[in-house]
């Protein structure tokens, strides 16, 4: 069945403590070329039937209303999985 991928990231201006802690851990590897990490979310949504513009409209609605909180996060992409 076809899937829609939604990606949500914490807003750029906000502190992302989990990303920061991970960045510090990654800095122990390599030559110090890693300077920052931000952690977001990826949702894989399975659709029953064909994906129509209406499906994507509905996904956009729930992405904005449920999957993300626009006070702290941005929906950065909604796309049909290959």
């Amino acid at each position: 069945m076809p899937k829609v991928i939604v990606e949500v990231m914490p807003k750029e201006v906000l502190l992302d403590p989990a990303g920061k802690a991970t960045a510090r851990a990654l800095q122990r590897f390599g030559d110090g070329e890693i300077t920052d990490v931000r952690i977001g979310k990826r949702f894989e949504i399975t659709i029953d039937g064909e994906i129509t513009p209406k499906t994507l409209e509905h996904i956009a609605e729930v992405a904005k209303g449920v999957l993300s909180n626009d006070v702290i996060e941005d929906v950065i992409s909604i796309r049909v999985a290959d």
Partner: protein
Amino acid sequence: MRVGVITFPGSLDDRDALRAIRLAGGDAVSLWHGDHDLHGVDAIVLPGGFSYGDYLRCGAIAAHSPIMSDVVDAANKGMPVLGICNGFQVLVEAHLLAGGLIRNDHGTFVRRDQKLRVENVDTPWTSGYTQGQEITIPLKNGEGGFIADDETLRQLEGDGLVAFRYLNVNPNGSLNDIAGLRNARGNVVGLMPHPEHAVEPGFGPDTPAAMSSGTDGLAMFQSVLRATVLS
């Protein structure tokens, strides 16, 4: 006076909230997240805990549970609603209160007896305090950092919608030391610290007088009983 406490999957302070209501002299009524029934209560408490395991975002899934549409309707008609900790997160996710709550800036869970200043006593949940009163109640959270954009923050401060502010220590990186908020109408209040854990001598925060003797949270539940009698 009947005060309801909603139990969500993963709520853990619902029984403490029910007990606090009884100790304040009210009738405590258990409400269930999956119902569309407020059982004729006069006020509602959304308790602390980890509803839905904090999946998606703290409070986000609970904010879309069946009973919440009834809570939003009741709140919009003026019913007093209090959100404690996870309950505060649910109210924010339900857009009944402004801003958002994110992971503590230091990245760890914090548990401490927290001093607060009561910043606004013009609500049914805070009318039993005096303006500027300093109280100590327990705080315990991993995601209690209050954030909002500059414009929202200016509005909250300008309109006097900050209900409680952290004193001495900002335990989680909350902007402007904000520990709790009210809505414009005043009937909806949310805070991260736990008034229901400071209602009975022997089980509250330490005070200069005696160990575990702090009961500074009780006035919040007494306030709403008085307010609902008067209204």
